[in-house]
């Protein structure tokens, strides 16, 4: 009976695996679902836009769809319209403009707005992460600080602290600080909390046995930190960084809303919503999604490289 499976097991299993990889993998299902979403989206363009005046006098199914997919201010734009707008407002527009003061970023280019938002995001992210790590280290080593502060930091997770964003813009504006910094402050305090919580969790993650081992070596607090706590915290730190970077981006975008900022993804969303420029809103949204994906991908890459250098398998 055993002869049945004896043929050439290696080869059999190799081809088995490629087929399985395709069938069991995620690529085919993800692409299928994406295709379904796109198809439904295209189909929905007519019913969603049916009340617009441009469609009132158009007869015939095909004709109506043709119009519905190329409206100027549709309720729901077709995906290709968004991609077209994205192309036109990035590659199709000059990024730099000559003014009396020299070359400046062209505000008609979407990349200009993306840069405005992402620079605030990154500045805030870096500040927030450094503060978060510093506080976590302090909290782990100073008992009184841990017991005073940690309950508040954990509780802050249940409070909509994003709502404080407008206050920061206005308060800093009142003392003359405008532009990138107030948005960076919002991004910083939003990214600060997940990093602190994740880092405290990571630094305290080594169990009692590992700590006892260090104690049998008579290791100092610094040595325990360097050889045990810090490496143990790295995986959790990266998990928090991913949360932080996306919430940083949200903070920077929301920071552009309340005072009607002139530049940034949030400003594009607001002006698009004000003038009913739906295609502009959607293209700003896609740009925001691309930025978020890029930022998270960068963190993931840094995570892989760091864990690889540390010799741990992710």
């Amino acid at each position: 009976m055993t002869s049945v499976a004896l043929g050439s097991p290696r080869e059999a299993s190799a081809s088995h695996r490629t087929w399985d990889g395709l069938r069991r993998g995620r690529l085919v299902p993800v692409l299928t679902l994406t295709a379904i979403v796109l198809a439904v989206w295209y189909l929905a363009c007519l019913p969603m836009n049916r009340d617009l005046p441009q469609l009132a006098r158009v007869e015939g199914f095909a004709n109506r769809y043709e119009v519905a997919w190329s409206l100027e201010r549709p309720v729901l734009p077709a995906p290709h319209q968004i991609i077209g707008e994205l192309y036109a407002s990035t590659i199709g527009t000059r990024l730099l403009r000559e003014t009396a003061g020299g070359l400046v970023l062209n505000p008609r280019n979407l990349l200009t707005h993306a840069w405005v938002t992402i620079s605030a995001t990154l500045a805030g992210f870096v500040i927030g992460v450094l503060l978060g790590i510093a506080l976590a280290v302090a909290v782990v080593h100073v008992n009184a600080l841990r017991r005073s502060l940690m309950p508040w930091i954990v509780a802050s997770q249940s409070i909509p602290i994003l709502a404080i964003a407008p206050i920061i813009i206005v308060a800093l504006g009142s003392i003359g600080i405008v532009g990138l910094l107030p948005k960076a402050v919002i991004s910083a305090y939003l990214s600060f909390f997940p990093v602190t919580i994740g880092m405290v969790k990571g630094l305290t993650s080594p169990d009692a046995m590992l700590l006892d081992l260090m104690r049998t070596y008579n290791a100092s607090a610094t040595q325990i930190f360097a050889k045990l706590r810090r490496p143990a915290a790295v995986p959790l730190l990266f998990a928090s960084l991913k949360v932080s970077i996306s919430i940083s981006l949200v903070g920077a975008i929301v920071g552009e809303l309340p005072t009607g900022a002139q530049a940034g993804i949030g400003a594009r969303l607001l002006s698009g919503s004000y003038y009913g420029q739906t295609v502009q809103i959607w293209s700003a949204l896609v740009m925001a999604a691309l930025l978020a994906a890029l930022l998270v991908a960068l963190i993931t890459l840094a995570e892989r490289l760091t864990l690889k250098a540390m010799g741990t398998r992710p």
Partner: protein
Amino acid sequence: MSAIASAASDRKQAMSLMALLAAGSLLATLALMLAHRGASGSVVITLALATWAIAWFANVIWSRSEGLPSLLTRLAPAAVPLLFGLTLLFLWEVICVGLKVPTVLLPAPSLILARLFASLPTLGADFVQTFVRAAVPGWLIGSAAGFLVALACDRSDFLRRGLIPIGNFVSALPIIGIAPILVMWFGFDWQSKAAMVVVMTFFPMLVNAVAGLAAAGRLERDLMYSYGASWLQTLLALRLPAAMPFLFNALKINASLALIGAIVAEFFGTPTLGMGFRISTEVGRMSLDMVWATIVIAAIAGSAFFGALVLLEKRVTFWHPSNRG
């Protein structure tokens, strides 16, 4: 002999803690009185810093809890952060009043509280509009939809393999940005805000519920299989209870997201009502005390919502190792 000595040192530690607390509250009262009577800034700040140092010293003793009577030791986990919070609040008040910080920059807590009580009807109506009409229904619908789709994923492996990567990807995106589109589709009133909350809460529940439905152990599943139990029987008797910690995790994440979603969506247009509307208009008018009062309401609502979920979770998942008493 040593028992007597430790009892004596017990009393000594407790006495010094009490003395610190008494001195701290006396100094704090003095600082507040002087600040509100318009004493010079440097005097008030010196007093405030001294109070802060005393409170911190009390917290160090209390959090170490060495040689303290058992009552004080048992109170420590709640008292230490409370004392810390009160000290911060006190510093905020004293610095704002003592240094005459402009209200636009930072209003004093007393000012915020006064505004809060003076504007209770307005704030109450805002709360109903944003929390009761938009956040809670959106949270319920979004979480329920996420759970139902997770059940569908459980029946169809193809759906699960397709949706989970998408769900993980979407959770990193600034979903809040679609608020202007939803306002355009569902109108200015609470419906568009509820829709925002539905979209924001859907994916966290989906991802958590799928993980939760896979959480039951292999032996526990084999057991149900050996009884020839149906999918529904296995779901109800095993997999749903085992998934509860995951479901509550999603419900708690979603509780904070719901409030954020509803408030931020109001920045893109509302009838003249709602916490987000209040924040954006009062910020425009530079009346920051009203903005802070709204934030206080939002914070109370958020933590009460969250706290209620935590209590419910403790009742439902009493069996979980983290809750066993």
